[in-house]
């Protein structure tokens, strides 16, 4: 029979909607509204996994984010696998597939069970350090074993089919938690007109009211919750986010919220819907209404399935209509937990007894329990539970809190469910993410948020305010405060009336004593997820670990995804007692984001796949694609690399493209080069200061190559700048340097030379640039332009304006190939039409499109540098043999002049750029290869330089390279050697870096 543990009625589930799901290969049924944990319990599934170190069977222990055991792997297909899902937080959906992450290969008959016993000895506290330090090389092997055994889940090996995204918010008040305090705060803040976001990690708003026995205004509390939600929904600037965990509290009131939009609907998000969203919120004020988390008592065998947090029992009974057992034994040190016994009784189940550590409890709930005939054993606690795969009984004995000892032999009571409550721990995680140390309050036996610089207000349970009426009032007041601090005027409001019940104080009990002592008693677990026992903590303190941070690291207490939700305070209390200090003296460990695990998908958002990074295209991209170009990434740009024809490879295509340019004419898309329009009466003076060479005498209509150095005298960009009018220039930069150079110009103008009247504007995207290069470029261009191209009328290094293919153009006669060359600039909108007309006219000249690779080869044949390839930020113009480009007599001390005259920059034997010609003309010197003078010296050899550019396939017919060599310019004619990784040595002659047309006749005809 299915759902053996489902109560006949009750709960917020929809019994008409039956859902089928699978756990560890077995099919079960549950209802819509169930959590996966509730559905598993309804089906009587006791064992949910095996423990981390000792491989002990473990069952569902809690009902919320604090669940330590039921951390499962979810996913029906390989692509939809999600690790680290708490069954208590996962809504049930039709077809859900879940598996244990621990207990390999099977949770019920665990092979690790045997290993585990060995492993238990293998893994005392500090096992990471003790066992696996030596031999070091084994660590990798150990790590694999431990990771698998530890059941940390696994990531999918296929691409996630769902969509995840990020969204940015700004609000006046962010309210974290939609329990009574949070909702009261939300009403107060929202009514003031503030922009409010309310986020809650649960499937629905209500917090503790979702399973409360209490009433508000004499009606079930959830009726007030529904009314509050309806009011909030009606306000325009209120955003309600259920299924949304505020996971991180970062600097400047920036918080991250992980919203699960469709995780409750199915294995995959419905088509067109986003599965999860990471909200990035910047809030003026934050209201933390995160509530409190019940703390278990630490007793023997408290990890056997059937041990459960007391409050969780109420949650399963009242919210899901599930009884996680038949016979309940409750062990408590406080009044509030008595509601669990009452709920259990109301559900028609058997309450065996309540063990209360207090000697004479008389609170309202206690009396109600007493009146209903529940057996109450005072001054007592559950000392140990019995059972392996399920609790079969537990021993209750009298204890002395002062001496921490057991004072009676006790009584074994038959039961299958031990509910435990050791008080409540305010959920201070978010309040502590930025370092505000929580402070201990003896009156509530819990840590509350300490002083913190953040603009936040804490309300309700996180403040140790536990009564319903008090919590509502605290929340409302906090909401008013947050809104008014954010600049809004709060309006008065009436709060619903809660019944004020007499509650007696909780007594301090964390670790229940055992007559055998901690070391010999049955294992008393403090941190179930990390398998840390009370004995381990005591051992750690005996071994000398006194700082709480050290105890944590030595024992793994509160590690990983758990973040100490259940075990932190108990662990501290045990360490404190063992060290004979108080809990506040002991202090707490740091809490870090994230509060619960966040999927990588939600973090990455849409920055993946085809929109991972911006890709920039020129106006001619469609044409390049049509020509079959292969592309190269240059910064964010896609540039045609080469244009293969008939299955050519890179080398064949480049050789052909080079030859076509040298023989006839080629065309290059140079649109990506940075172009900066410079205007103003001081433009020329500015150029004088920013470039290394002189600009005073450049006439209108002329263009000049310029080098730019940083203050240190090292080359950082280059390009041609043309004088368009007296106060008007256009500068070109390298493709990658465009933004950098513009910023550089602005910085110097704005900060150093504000007296210079000059403005800079990027025109990189405005102009498309087509470069025609080769001996036939003049003939070709003349067919499509009205510009007089005669060499006298339009000489080298000048520019003209006119129509090209019917489109107004500026044409620059400059050359990066060493050939007769024209760069045609037109407004980018018209570039495609111009290109098509040029290509049509170019047919008879074998006009050949060429890409960046051919451009690189042709410029290298001419010895033209590429900044960033032949330079590396440590080369002066003189190092590059470009002293001709340095204006040594310029009157103003221009950028780089002082730097390049430093002692070190003018010494002998600096690395200088030279040509390298392999002695064997077919041998290619790898770019980046180191050079030595003597290849026979012993290793490590003295390196004297390296290859910067090298091309085997070119128009020269032999392999050649450029490189830097110590004192290279004085070594022309000498040999250098490049020892290769395979042991071979490439020998090369140091030559001039200009390999082709050294006199420049071809570009200047």
């Amino acid at each position, binding site marked *: 029979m299915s759902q053996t543990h489902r109560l006949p009625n009750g709960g917020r589930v929809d019994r008409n909607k039956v859902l089928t799901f699978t756990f560890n290969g077995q099919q079960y049924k549950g209802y819509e509204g169930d959590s996966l944990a509730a559905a598993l319990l309804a089906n009587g599934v006791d064992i949910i996994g095996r423990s981390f170190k000792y491989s002990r069977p473990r069952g569902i222990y809690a009902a919320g984010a604090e669940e330590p055991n039921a951390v499962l792997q979810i996913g029906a297909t390989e692509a939809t696998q999600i690790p680290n899902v708490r069954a208590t937080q996962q809504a049930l959906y039709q077809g859900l597939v879940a598996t244990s992450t621990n207990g390999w290969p099977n949770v019920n008959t665990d092979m690790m069970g045997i290993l585990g016993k060995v492993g238990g000895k293998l893994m005392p506290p500090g096992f990471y350090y003790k066992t696996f330090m030596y031999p070091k090389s084994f660590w990798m092997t150990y790590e694999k074993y431990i990771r698998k055994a530890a059941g940390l889940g696994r990531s999918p090996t296929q691409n996630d089919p769902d969509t995840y995204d990020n969204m940015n918010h700004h609000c006046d008040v962010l309210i974290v938690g939609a329990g009574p305090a949070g909702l009261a705060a939300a009403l107060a803040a929202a009514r003031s007109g503030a922009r409010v976001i309310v986020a809650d990690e649960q499937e629905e708003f209500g917090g503790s009211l979702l399973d409360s026995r209490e009433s508000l205004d004499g009606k079930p509390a959830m009726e007030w919750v529904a009314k509050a939600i309806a009011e909030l929904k009606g306000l325009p600037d209120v955003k309600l986010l259920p299924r949304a965990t505020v996971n991180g509290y970062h600097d400047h009131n920036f918080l991250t919220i992980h919203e699960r939009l469709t995780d409750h609907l199915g294995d995959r998000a419905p088509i067109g819907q986003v599965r999860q969203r990471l909200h990035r919120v*910047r809030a003026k004020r934050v209201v933390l209404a995160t509530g409190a988390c019940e703390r278990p008592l630490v007793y023997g065998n408290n990890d056997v399935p059937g041990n459960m947090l007391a409050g969780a029992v109420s949650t399963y009974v009242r919210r899901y209509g599930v009884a996680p057992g038949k016979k309940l034994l409750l062990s408590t040190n406080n009044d509030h937990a008595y509601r669990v016994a009452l709920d259990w009784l109301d559900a028609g189940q058997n309450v065996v007894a309540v063990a209360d550590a207090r000697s004479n409890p008389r609170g309202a709930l206690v009396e109600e329990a007493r009146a209903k005939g529940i057996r109450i054993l005072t001054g007592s606690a559950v000392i140990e539970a019995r059972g392996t795969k399920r609790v079969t009984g537990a021993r209750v004995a009298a204890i002395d809190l002062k001496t921490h000892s057991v004072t009676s032999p006790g009584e074994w009571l038959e039961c299958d469910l031990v509910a435990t409550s050791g008080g409540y721990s305010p959920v201070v995680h978010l309040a502590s993410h930025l370092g505000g140390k929580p402070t201990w309050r003896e009156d509530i036996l819990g840590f509350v948020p300490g002083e913190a610089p953040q603009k936040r207000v804490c309300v309700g349970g996180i403040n140790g305010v536990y009564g319903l009426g008090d919590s509502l009032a605290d929340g409302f007041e906090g909401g008013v405060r947050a809104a008014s601090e954010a600049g809004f005027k709060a309006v008065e409001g009436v709060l619903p009336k809660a019944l004020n019940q007499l509650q007696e104080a909780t007594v301090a009990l964390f670790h229940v004593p055992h007559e055998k002592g901690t070391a010999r008693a049955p294992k008393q677990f403090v941190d179930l997820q990390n398998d840390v026992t009370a004995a381990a903590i005591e051992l750690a303190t005996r071994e000398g670990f006194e700082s709480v941070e050290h105890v944590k690291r030595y024992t793994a207490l509160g590690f990983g995804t758990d973040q100490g939700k259940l075990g932190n305070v108990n662990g501290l209390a045990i360490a404190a007692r063992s060290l004979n200090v108080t809990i506040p003296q002991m202090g707490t460990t740091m809490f870090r984001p994230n509060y619960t695990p966040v999927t990588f998908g939600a973090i990455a958002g849409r920055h993946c796949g085809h929109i991972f990074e911006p890709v920039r295209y020129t106006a001619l991209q469609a044409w390049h694609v049509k020509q079959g170009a292969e592309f190269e990434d240059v910064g964010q740009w896609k540039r045609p690399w080469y244009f293969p024809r008939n299955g050519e490879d890179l080398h064949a295509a480049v050789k052909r493209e080079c030859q076509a340019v040298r023989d006839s004419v080629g065309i290059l898309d140079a649109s990506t080069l940075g172009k900066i329009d410079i205007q103003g009466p001081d433009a020329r003076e500015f150029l004088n200061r920013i470039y290394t060479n002189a600009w005073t005498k450049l006439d209108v209509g002329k263009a000049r190559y310029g080098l730019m150095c940083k203050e240190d005298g090292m080359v950082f960009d280059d390009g041609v700048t043309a004088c368009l009018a007296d106060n008007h220039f256009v500068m070109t930069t390298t493709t990658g340097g465009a933004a950098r150079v513009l910023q550089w110009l602005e910085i110097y103008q704005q900060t150093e030379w504000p007296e210079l009247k000059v403005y800079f504007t990027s025109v990189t995207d405005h102009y498309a640039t087509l470069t025609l290069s080769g001996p036939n470029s003049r003939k070709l261009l003349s067919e499509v332009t009205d510009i007089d191209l005669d060499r006298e009328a339009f000489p080298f290094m000048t520019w003209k304006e006119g129509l090209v293919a019917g489109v107004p153009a500026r044409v620059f006669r400059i050359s990066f190939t060493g050939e007769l060359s024209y760069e045609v600039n037109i407004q980018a909108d018209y570039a495609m039409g111009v290109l098509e007309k040029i290509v049509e006219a170019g047919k008879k000249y074998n006009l050949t499109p060429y890409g960046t690779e051919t451009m690189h080869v042709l410029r290298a044949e001419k010895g033209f540098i590429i900044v960033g390839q032949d330079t590396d930020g440590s080369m002066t113009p003189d190092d590059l043999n470009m002293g001709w480009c340095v204006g040594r007599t310029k009157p103003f001390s221009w950028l780089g002049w002082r730097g390049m005259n430093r002692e070190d920059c003018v010494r002998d034997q600096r690395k200088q750029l030279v040509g390298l010609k392999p002695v064997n003309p077919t041998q290619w010197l790898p770019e980046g290869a180191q050079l030595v003078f003597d290849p026979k010296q012993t290793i490590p050899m003295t390196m004297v330089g390296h290859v910067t550019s090298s091309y085997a396939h070119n128009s020269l017919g032999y392999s050649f390279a450029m490189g830097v060599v110590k004192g290279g310019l004085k070594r022309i004619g000498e040999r250098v050697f490049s020892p290769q990784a395979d042991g071979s040595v490439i020998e090369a002659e140091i030559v001039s870096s200009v390999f082709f047309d050294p006199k420049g006749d071809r570009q200047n005809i």
Partner: protein
Amino acid sequence: MTTANVYQQRPDSGVKAESSLHHTNLASLTGKGRKNAGVIVREKKLLGHLTLRGDAKDPAFAEGVHKALGLELPVALSLVAKGDTSLQWMGPDEWLLIVPGGQEYAVEQALRAALVGLHISVVNVSGGQQLLELSGPNVRNVLMKSTSYDVHPDNFPVGKAIGTVFAKSQLVIRHTGEDTWELLIRRSFSDYWWLWLQDAAAEYGLSVEA
């Protein structure tokens, strides 16, 4: 002596012109999106864009601009418009003027005539950028997915315009009507923006308007 080289950059009509989203063939998508789409995109292409620089504190500059354009210089982070002409503050000494396509040459000449003798710069950037108009009830959500800037009308009223981070790059956002916004996109990034916007708007439904 001419201080600047200004020329008619646009060819006579009849010459093929391609906006930066030409390859996406938006025209063919017109009317094909989801009915009642949450986001409607419209390309405002081939307009005249001029970047104007000058000294905002110099009354002669403001007067000259007004004389040439009939528009007051907008204050920081705002936009003024008259008919199809808009003038946007881009920085303490920089404005963006958008005029109907083809008018930019005449307007530049008028500006230069009105501002003669002042240190200014006018640069035609028409080929390098264009506007994408986004309208519909879900535009704000799309913007919130894309930029960390606060786009709530309290902070971003109609008439405001800012340059900011958008996805993994930067652009200018202009709020031109209650549910209408414009993105000023650079030509080389246009494809990325188009892909990004389609993706961000997918859950709300996207339609294209001519």
